């Protein structure tokens, strides 16, 4: 198996063989921030706990970059995703360009973002549309 690393330390925790986004829920002001940092970014409290982030959110705004950025090849769909707990997360969106829409529901997935020249796989998170069924019976 190839060596694997996480694209940015502290953004994903491994639990039962799965990677999940862990944020900090502040017990003083109630805000959830991601990734967890030293103190609550909103109120400076150290009274917080690590919690998994919601896995489904909505697209606040998006852009499609048409030139390469670092290891990524265009088109690169970037989006701010708003989670039910009030946290905004930037991530890439793996979707067809035609279906992109502000307010669309997306869910988080984790996987290899890119592979380094030495074969090291760099793991991270990205979002995919929540499939909606049109027509037919539920």
């Amino acid at each position, binding site marked *: 198996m190839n060596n694997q690393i996480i694209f940015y330390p502290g953004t994903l925790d491994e639990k039962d063989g799965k990677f999940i986004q862990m944020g900090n829920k502040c017990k003083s002001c109630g805000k959830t921030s991601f990734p967890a940092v030293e103190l609550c970014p909103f109120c400076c409290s150290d009274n917080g706990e690590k919690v998994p982030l919601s896995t489904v959110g909505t697209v606040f*705004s998006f*852009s499609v*970059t048409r030139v390469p*950025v670092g290891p990524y090849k265009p088109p690169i769909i*970037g989006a701010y995703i708003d989670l039910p707990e009030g*946290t905004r997360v*930037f991530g890439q969106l793996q979707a067809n360009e035609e279906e992109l829409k502000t307010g669309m529901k997306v869910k988080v997935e984790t996987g290899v*973002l890119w592979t380094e020249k030495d074969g090291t796989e760099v793991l991270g998170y990205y979002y995919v549309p929540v499939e909606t069924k049109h027509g037919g019976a539920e």
Partner: protein
Amino acid sequence: MRDVYVLGIGQTVFGKHTDLSVNDLGAAAGLAAVKDAEISPKEFQTAYCGAMHNIPVVGESILRRLGVDRIPIFNVENACASGSSAVHLLYRDIALGACEVGIALGVESLSAYARKFGKGLIGFEEDHEAKLALTMPSFFAMLCNRLMQERGATIEDICYASIKNHKAGISNPYSQYKKEVTVEEIMASPMIADPITVLQCCPQSDGAAAIILCSEDFYKKHNKKENRAPVRVAGSVISVSGAQDSSYDPLALKSLIDGAKAAYEMAGIGPEDLNVVELHDAFSGEELAAYEMLGLCKPGEGVTLARSGAAEMGGRCPVNPSGGLQSMGHPLGASGVRVVADIARQLWGEAGGYQVEGAQVGLAQMLGGVLSNIESPVVAGIQILVK
């Protein structure tokens, strides 16, 4: 707080200066300011130098070439607001009585940066969202998409500042570009991040700017330009954003709105008193959002203001008559000093082909930095000058 006056300004032509180092550029701008102020650099009691991609002790490295030594010199980095921060700190030193006179420099060589780190879009080092390809164009593309969705901006509106500012830059001898552009040319240029094309982006530039500020006493003793009306820095604010949650809208950046209000209050004026504005138009569409945040129009009416022509030469309050970052160019650390120098030039009536007739009050603004989990852009710099 004491009154602070502008004694002299200087800058290089902005553009590609591949044969000039950061030191060459900074020394040229510094020397131009010294000549303009007609004082010896030995008079300086302190100096600040704004630069984003810095060489070590850049301010000292530049100023030794002008014989400036044995004074406190500070190097300031605050992304595109680095130069604004240098001006602000010098202003503060003089206003609070810590010194009588000093120089603020801003300098950048993106040619040198590209030689070191390669070309391409710039993300912020060590930022986790930058590692997911959040770049300046992708951030401002989202802002443009918000403008289209929330304000009904069309592609023509998004291109407005690029067209207006390229036209204005033609008469500015310091401008990188001297060429008009049309909507068709803008949209035919390569797409960077929808809807932002190359011709909606400021160019990557090399250049430097400098401003010499002083106390009223020093000004009275040393100002030799009898025909120049005294120009005061009446307000100066550096305003940093707060933590971001899902309520944030980049069309209403609190640090800029509050920073502008604080600067107006310091200066004892309102946005309706402004005759000229120089602002951060790194991406064409953002200028329309800035109209609202600076109070040039009501919230929600940035597109309407653009369509009214009020921000053009001959309009109620021309914005970026220099050509702005779109046409002037944007040597990152230099721009924050350059916009203040340009407002001084306007109030002195020395802006030549891009002079706003009768300008009495002007505002210079810069925005800098896009980071994770903080309302971006991260830093707003605002300076108000009054004749």
